[in-house]
């Protein structure tokens, strides 16, 4: 998990009103809260700014990300600082202020820790649990939790299994198993690892690693490192490397990931890569039939119509023929995570819908739907488990 601990602090008093530590080695909440309040007010004084400007305090292997509410200040200690984490923190702070508004004026015991638990769990814990996530139960876990549902869940499942296995073992829907695992993770009684999947898109963080780091690197892992460009799913990278053993390749990537030499790209970047591959294949197939010129016209027309609602589409352009080119402004925004995955998903979906509707006038409904079907199959080769994150049905056209 990338989050180590979370704190919500009252700004004018510097009292920590809520904290949760996921690692067991967090800072003393009261110590940290006084430090943060002191530092942020120092910044405000120093820059004579009315709006608080501090954003993060960095350690060697952690960053304390700070976001401000009206009367509270949220801080998470995290291993990565990106917009995605910030957005989650912002939402959490906003919800806290709504739920416990009265604390702004008076100090009361509102059982904040138990009542706010679910919100934090939804924002920070739940997203780490996927159906294919592996869970390992900690030894002596009975002493660590008192929740009856977690206890009965852990008693019944094997010590190491995936969520999917656990759900079929208990004969409950996967969703319920995921919720139970989130609670168990919250209690700190299980350790979760998300296996590296062929759909995942990784980027190398150390293209010029130090001498020492390279010594431990196997030749395969070193070659792997140069293939992970942040735009290629592992399935395709494996193909490019002509590796015969996909499992071995994924293990190499997991090994690199553990050593922080590669990292998963931001969710927005993953969405961009997935959708742009789909769009590229679709355009290529359409251009095979009607030629480049009409498809270019349709692409540009559809983009022109949508740019009002999705200004970032301006940065999706065509090179020669129908080759899609993402301008670096968009790519860096997605890498930083300053554009949300939902916005990208929404924009691309509408864009492809526009294109298929316009192409329908040219080709008729049936061929367009057949091409969509073929495109989906081709994407499924590249992104076997996330292919249906694209809403293919919404692209279909009616005759």
């Amino acid at each position: 998990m990338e989050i180590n601990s979370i704190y919500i602090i009252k700004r004018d008093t510097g009292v920590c009103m809520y904290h949760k530590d996921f690692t067991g080695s967090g800072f003393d909440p009261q110590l940290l809260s006084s430090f943060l309040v002191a530092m942020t007010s120092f910044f405000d004084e120093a820059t004579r700014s009315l709006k608080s400007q501090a954003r993060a305090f960095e350690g060697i292997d952690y960053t304390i990300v700070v976001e401000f509410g009206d009367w509270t200040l949220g801080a998470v200690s995290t291993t990565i600082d990106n917009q995605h984490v910030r957005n989650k923190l912002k939402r959490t702070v906003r919800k806290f202020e709504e739920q416990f508004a009265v604390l702004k004026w008076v100090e009361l015991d509102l059982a904040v820790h138990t009542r706010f638990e679910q919100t934090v769990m939804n924002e920070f814990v739940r997203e780490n649990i996927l159906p294919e996530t592996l869970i390992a139960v900690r030894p002596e876990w009975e002493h660590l939790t008192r929740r009856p549902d977690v206890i009965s869940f852990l008693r019944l499942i094997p010590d190491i299994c995936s969520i999917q296995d656990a759900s079929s073992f208990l004969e409950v829907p996967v969703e319920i198993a995921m919720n139970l695992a989130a609670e168990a993770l919250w209690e700190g009684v299980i350790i979760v690892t998300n296996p590296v999947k062929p759909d995942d898109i990784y980027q190398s963080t150390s293209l010029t690693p130090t001498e020492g780091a390279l010594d431990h690197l196997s030749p395969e892992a070193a070659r792997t490192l140069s293939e992970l460009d942040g735009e290629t799913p592992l399935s395709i990278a494996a193909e490019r490397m002509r590796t015969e053993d996909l499992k071995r390749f994924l293990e190499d990537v997991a090994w690199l990931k553990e050593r922080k030499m590669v990292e998963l790209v931001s969710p927005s970047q993953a969405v961009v890569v997935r959708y742009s591959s789909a769009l590229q294949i679709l355009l290529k197939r359409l251009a095979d039939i009607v030629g480049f010129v009409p498809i270019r016209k349709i692409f540009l027309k559809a983009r022109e119509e949508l740019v009002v609602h999705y200004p970032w589409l301006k940065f999706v352009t065509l090179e020669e023929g129908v080759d899609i080119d993402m301008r670096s402004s968009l790519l860096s925004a997605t890498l930083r995570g300053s554009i949300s995955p939902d916005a990208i998903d929404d924009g691309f979906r509408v864009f492809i819908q526009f294109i298929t509707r316009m192409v329908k006038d040219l080709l008729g409904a049936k061929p367009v739907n057949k091409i969509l079907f073929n495109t989906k199959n081709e994407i499924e080769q590249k992104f076997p488990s996330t292919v249906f994150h694209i809403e293919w049905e919404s692209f279909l056209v009616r005759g």
Partner: protein
Amino acid sequence: MQQTRWSDTVPIFILGLGILLVFLFLPLAGFDNALSIVSLILTPLIAFMLGIFGLRIFGRGSEEREDQIQTLYLWLSIGLLMLSLSELATSIVKTIQSPLPIEVTVGLVQMPGLLLWGFGILQYLRSVNSALELLNSDRLWSVLLIGTTLATLFLVVINAVYNPLIGSIESIVMSPLVIGLVLFTSVTLGLVWIFRQGEFAKSLVLIFIGFFIYLIRTAQWALATSILGNPSNSLFALEAFMFFGAAFILARNLGNPSQ
């Protein structure tokens, strides 16, 4: 990355050397007749094969259209194909030892044009098939190849049996033309059917009608004698050309917003 190595061209050079040796050896050994037969067959055949070979390498991928060196090789291949036909004409004239019947001459002159049409249509068919994934592409090509060959032979036989007025040479030259046009017409009809609901079918319909009229015209030649140059026959050709022109105009505005 493969390099450009002289050694890659060895098979072609061996073939060239082999032919050279045969041409030197046969007259020395006194096989003059054999030499003329070999040259009659080989010259058009080699030109045709190399032309096709060049087209296969350089005719694919429209993204390379801008590439001038690709274009050069493409034109060289097309030139080879055309030359192969003139060589074929030489061979035929040499074989029958008399001036060619006018239909055959005209037919041979027509062939390059029809070949170009054929390459266009079949390449497009391949592209559509790869986008829509309708049929397995190997199967499609074998079916087309076997189908056209059988149909051509069938037409030659039919002509020989039921229409003895037409010379066998004419029949052999004209039958592939007719069958080729039948193939183009049916492929375009198929494409029209696939895209029947869209704007795009409009230009295809015109091409289909063009092919169809031209087919009627050529079939008249192949099946009846002394119709060449009749006003009605020329009219068919004219109308067919008109339809192609109309198709160009429609295709030019493809993809423009409707209103």
